[in-house]
């Protein structure tokens, strides 16, 4: 058992490191690692993964809160969507067959690996946001804010509140069903749909991930999907790995490393889909 825990800890360190380097988060790597690597039942794997998601997002968010670029109000409003989605996702997970969950997981993994590669157009700073007359709901929610740039404070107003809310619900469902943070989808909802500046979107998303994961983790805990012996090395390993990854990210050029890991994640995705279809999981 000591050997098992030690190997698991090393794997979690690695998962946390890759997760923060690629920006995908530890969860998408922990679930395949546990199921394919260690033969752990996917239900235990998802519960364990949620724990690591809360740990890394709370750790990272504490830094963002101080920088003051995140929009706490909009984050809170959208958390209604993500937490409700997360509970729905956890409920679906109890009824869905495990091999179906594995297949869905594989496709989400495949998508994340590809999207981490498609280069974002660098519009965050230069873009001039179209000034539209804000609707009543947006005025009521004070859905606007400012963020610091090189040229001083820049202000922004939200758009498409309804569309953003729906995509956030889907992000919550995927998070609760698969035990991942679904940070990428949260950023898409805010940045592409609601036209919130990219920097504000990423930090607000990170801030929301912990609350979203806590909503489904509560249900997973109550249903007995969260095991202490399994969670211990994973939580500590992912936490340390992601902190090291964040430091590494600041110091080095990571393009080639990211390419290697995207290939690894793509292979994991196919492995999950294959095992799911073959009903091995």
């Amino acid at each position: 058992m000591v050997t098992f825990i030690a190997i698991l800890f090393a794997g979690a360190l690695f998962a946390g490191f890759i997760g923060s380097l690629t920006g995908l988060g530890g969860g998408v790597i922990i679930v395949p690692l546990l199921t394919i690597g260690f033969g752990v039942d996917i239900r235990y794997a998802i519960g364990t993964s949620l724990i690591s998601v809360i740990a890394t997002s709370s750790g990272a968010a504490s830094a963002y809160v101080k920088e003051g670029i995140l929009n706490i109000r909009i984050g809170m409003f959208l958390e209604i969507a993500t937490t409700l989605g997360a509970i729905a996702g956890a409920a679906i997970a109890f009824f869905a067959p495990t091999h179906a969950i594995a297949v869905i997981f594989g496709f989400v993994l495949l998508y994340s690996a590809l999207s981490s590669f498609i280069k974002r157009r660098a519009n965050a700073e230069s873009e001039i946001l179209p000034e539209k007359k804000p609707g009543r709901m947006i005025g009521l929610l004070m859905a606007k804010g400012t963020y610091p740039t090189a040229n001083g404070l820049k202000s922004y107003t939200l758009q498409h509140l309804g569309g953003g809310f729906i995509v956030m619900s889907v992000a919550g469902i995927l998070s609760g069903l698969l035990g991942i943070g679904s940070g990428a989808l949260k950023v898409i909802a805010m940045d592409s749909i609601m036209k919130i500046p990219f920097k504000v979107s990423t930090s607000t998303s990170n801030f929301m991930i912990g609350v979203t994961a806590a909503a489904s983790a509560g249900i997973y805990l109550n249903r007995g999907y969260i095991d202490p012996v399994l969670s211990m090395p994973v939580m500590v390993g992912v936490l340390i790995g992601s902190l090291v990854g964040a430091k590494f990210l600041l110091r080095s050029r990571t393009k080639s490393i990211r390419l290697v890991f995207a290939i690894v994640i793509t292979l994991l995705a196919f492995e999950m889909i294959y095992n799911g279809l073959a009903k091995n999981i």
Partner: protein
Amino acid sequence: MRNIMGSLLRVGVLAAAFLVVLGGVLFFLQHPKEVFDYTTFKGEPAKFRQVHLIVKEAMNLRGRDIIQLGLLVLIATPVARVIFSLIGFLIEKDWIYVSITAIVLMILFVSLLSNYLTF
């Protein structure tokens, strides 16, 4: 308020990590030879599932019980963050966001205490 929230998150994660590591060390000392099987799902016993039992069992200082308390502290950290936001909006008398935050808090409590609620 932002500073309090930032430190709250950090303290919550550190406290949880401390309990989990402490519990892990105790577990190895108490059960060096025990082997668990996770290949088939059995589900955890009530003492690892229900909030009041997790808190109660941890007082016995057994390794796995302390780890589980640490995990509970970790799950409670974002909940505490939402409670602090609620207090912040109350101080600002921002009633719209007081209501929004109260809804989020209610959803989190329903989830965390779902064993005690009958649907």
